[in-house]
């Protein structure tokens, strides 16, 4: 068990695993995406209150969920790297940031696009919206800090600290709708016992959420591969690998 773990966290093994897994996740993403889009745009009935505009839910909510989820992944990976000096964890954490930022941006943008027809305004300064904006800053700060250091190891450690400290914001964003009276929708889907949403609407949403997750894994694997190569550029297995690639081309 321990041996397997060590193998897994060895950069070389992880690299090969990532190379193996990337296409699988890519295909999974595409399949789920097609299913989700069909379900969301065609199959699901229009909402009796919001009409067709509610279909934005199928991009907005998964993006919003991912923006929170990825941050947690990033912080945990950073913490693992910080404590146990596991390179793979550093690499994964670093790879998460741009995707997380993208999803945060998407949540903001699609939320805005949804808000205009629903609330009559693109933007209100309420708790959830503002805290999501701040989450975007958090991602940007993380990336800026990563790039401010010349040394990879130093950058990884410094930004891991930041990510961990920023973790307090996640529950705040999540619960903001309950703590403040806001325009934003309360928990409708994620209520554990009985989601207050029609099952025909729910299923495509869950499929879309899975599609986004698969997408996230794909991109993280892809970016991690690059990062690992840079991280390990002095080791023999990387030069061997590069030789192989070179002789092939």
């Amino acid at each position, binding site marked *: 068990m321990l041996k397997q773990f060590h193998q897994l966290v060895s950069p070389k093994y992880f690299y090969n695993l990532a190379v193996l897994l990337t296409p699988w996740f890519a295909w999974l993403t595409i399949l789920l995406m097609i299913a989700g889009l069909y379900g969301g745009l065609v199959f699901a009935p229009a909402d009796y209150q919001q009409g067709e505009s509610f279909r934005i839910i199928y991009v907005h909510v998964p993006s919003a969920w991912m923006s929170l989820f990825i941050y947690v992944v990033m912080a945990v990976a950073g913490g693992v790297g910080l404590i146990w000096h596991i390179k793979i964890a550093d690499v994964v954490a670093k790879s998460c940031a741009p995707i997380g930022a993208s999803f945060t941006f998407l949540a903001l943008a699609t939320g805005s696009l949804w808000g205009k027809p629903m609330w009559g305004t693109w933007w209100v300064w309420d708790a959830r919206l503002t*805290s999501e904006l*701040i989450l975007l800053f958090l991602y940007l700060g993380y990336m800026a800090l990563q790039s401010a250091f010349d*040394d990879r190891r*130093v950058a990884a450690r410094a930004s891991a*600290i930041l990510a961990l400290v920023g973790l307090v914001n996640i529950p705040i964003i999540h619960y903001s709708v309950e703590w403040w009276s806001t325009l934003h929708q309360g928990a409708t889907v994620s209520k554990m016992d009985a989601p207050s949403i029609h099952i025909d609407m729910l299923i495509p949403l869950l499929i879309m959420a899975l599609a986004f997750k698969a997408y996230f894994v794909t991109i993280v694997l892809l970016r991690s591969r690059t990062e690992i190569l840079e991280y390990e550029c002095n080791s023999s297995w990387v030069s061997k690998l590069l030789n192989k690639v070179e002789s092939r081309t």
Partner: protein
Amino acid sequence: MTSYWNAFRVIFLRDIILASRYRAELANPLIFFIMVIVLFPFAFGSDPDLLRRVTAGMIWITALLASSLSLEGIFRSDYADGSAEQMVLSGYPLTLLVAAKIAAHWCLTGLPLIIIAMLTAYLLSLPTQALQALFLTLFLGTPVLSLIGAIAVALTVGLRSGGMLLSLIILPLYMPILIFSMLAVENAMADIPFDAELYFLSGMLVLSVTLAPIATAYSLRIRMS
């Protein structure tokens, strides 16, 4: 143990003395505060009702800005004149020394800030229960600002793009404290109990008192290398 305490005390006192020498640092957040408050009625007109509604928020934002701005210098001079090197190389855990520095920072900015803020709030005739909530939130919140801010400062000290990065990093970290403090004050104004918010702030305080000096020391060490 006593020698640990002694090291803490010396660094703490050193920073206090330094600030009192350069009275700049000592008084800056205060003057800053006073400035804001004096300019306040000019900026918002003298409608007493409006002023009352804005006061607590204004005080908290100012406290936040004052804290983050004065924090920026907390390690800068140490870094520039080589004192940080010597602290890293001292015979004591860096965490301890960093904790002393943060404590000094709070005593120099947070504490006087609370006093002035209360005075201001009183002058602007904030209702008593709001006054009380404001005091409690400031008392619990400002140390957290110093503690969390110190981590961000340590991460960015001496970096090329330090200041900008610092603000970018510090802002999201300060957000929860501001949010809960303002909630508490609002609840107090509406005569709703605000225990939950105070518990949250206390939790943050305990957490950051125990963890922030470690994180700061660690960050500083990272920055030195």
